[in-house]
């Protein structure tokens, strides 16, 4: 039983270490605490948001070892050794927005934006997995992220734009070619 750091009326709390947005991090979590709980309460990362608590809405999307998962369904104690990325990890070190965030801004792909972090993170992996995704594939991949304000058409426009821009960059002649 490694890592036990105290028990109270609620139950025991364990130390859990993982890499959070590139930084080694240790938190204390009780067994039933989720990643959302510890990232908000202990790491103050408010871009991770609970919406439904049952893995349906995607407001709590985090990348675990690069793959989108529902932060509300991951027991924090099981995150030992994982690499976790939240929306706060999308900007580069100088605070420049990533191209994904920039596309969402340009298309105003949000309203209340409670769901936006989840969409951004899911989009990050979508672009890696299916660089030539069709609109249908974009919709299907992102269908598990819900936006009650219904900003879907603008999100589709933002992701379509991103796919095109990345393709253009990939096809652009490099210096060696020139």
């Amino acid at each position, binding site marked *: 039983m490694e890592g036990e750091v105290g028990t109270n009326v609620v139950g*025991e709390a364990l130390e859990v270490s993982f890499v959070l947005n590139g930084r080694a991090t240790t938190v204390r979590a009780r067994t039933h605490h989720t990643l959302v709980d510890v990232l908000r309460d202990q790491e103050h990362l408010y871009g991770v948001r609970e919406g439904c608590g049952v893995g349906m809405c995607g407001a709590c999307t985090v990348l675990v070892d690069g793959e989108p998962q529902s932060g509300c369904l991951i027991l924090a104690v099981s995150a030992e050794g994982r690499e976790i990325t939240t929306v706060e990890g999308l900007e580069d070190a100088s605070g420049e927005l990533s191209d994904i965030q920039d596309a969402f801004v340009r298309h105003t792909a949000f309203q209340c934006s409670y769901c936006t972090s989840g969409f951004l993170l899911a989009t990050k992996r979508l672009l890696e997995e299916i660089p030539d995704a069709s609109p249908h594939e974009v919709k299907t991949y992102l269908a598990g992220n819900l936006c009650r304000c219904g900003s879907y058409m603008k999100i589709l426009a933002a992701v379509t734009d991103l796919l095109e821009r990345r393709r253009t960059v990939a096809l652009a002649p490099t210096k060696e070619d020139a």
Partner: protein
Amino acid sequence: MLAPRFLRPESSDEAVELLRSFEGAAKVVAGSTAMTIMLRQGLIEPDALIYVGGLPGLREIHEEDSRLRVGALCTHREVELSAEVRAVLPILAYTFGTVANVRVRNAATVGGVVAEADYASDPPAVLLGLGADVITTSPSGERRRPLLSFYRSFYETELDFDELIVAIDVPIPPSGTYAVYEKYVSRASEDRPCVGVFASAQFYGGLFHNVRIAIGAASETPQHVPAIDRAGDESDLRASVIGEIAEAYAEQTDTLDDMRGSSWYRKEMIRVWVRRALERVREDAYASPSPSRSSSIPDEMPRRDQ
């Protein structure tokens, strides 16, 4: 107590010993997608969680002797995207790819979905239709059971409290087999199925053989009735034969009522979707009479380039 103990065994053997020591008061957890919800909603109050997520040897997929063995810790997404599964059992990859959303599929495991016995899950019916076995281990040793006799009722299986699922073992259908899974969702796209129908048949000599149907999400446990399926064997799956099979499943399934459809509606949907599934099998067989390996590849197989 809100927060049960959290134990991390280092091997399957240690895990099942722990399970035995808690005498039923411990729960196994891996992907934790279902367990977290049950725990937080107070539906279960275990004394301990036995975390098996990192255990070695339970995450392999391999083919041997015309059987595909899928480790219990493989995630849904791993099955969905596995080149091996897609090659020999594309219908299995397709089915796991229809479950919930990408996030849940990245976490939920094969062992978890089989053990949870949630009536509204997609994979159990398809595994049942394919004739899969469940392989478990316990302090008393390894055991193999056909899925057909594994499910008892809502969230209830034959699994003993000190038993851990280590793999599912699926026979690879003989060549010339066509399989489909029809997931019918009655409300929003992200809903779970109202009914799910698996159908497969082998096609040679102008006739269909080894017809297999399984119905999920419509009753407490997935349904597969070999006696009904036999009506399709050695037939050309003409409309009347298909109709007979569909009717028999609709009649015999003890359908349930929930917000996705009444018991009456589910019977109607079984009738429609068994028919549609078998029609697709027939059409696929006529369209390409000799599939490369075992079954037709569904139209909408998700992709992954990296």
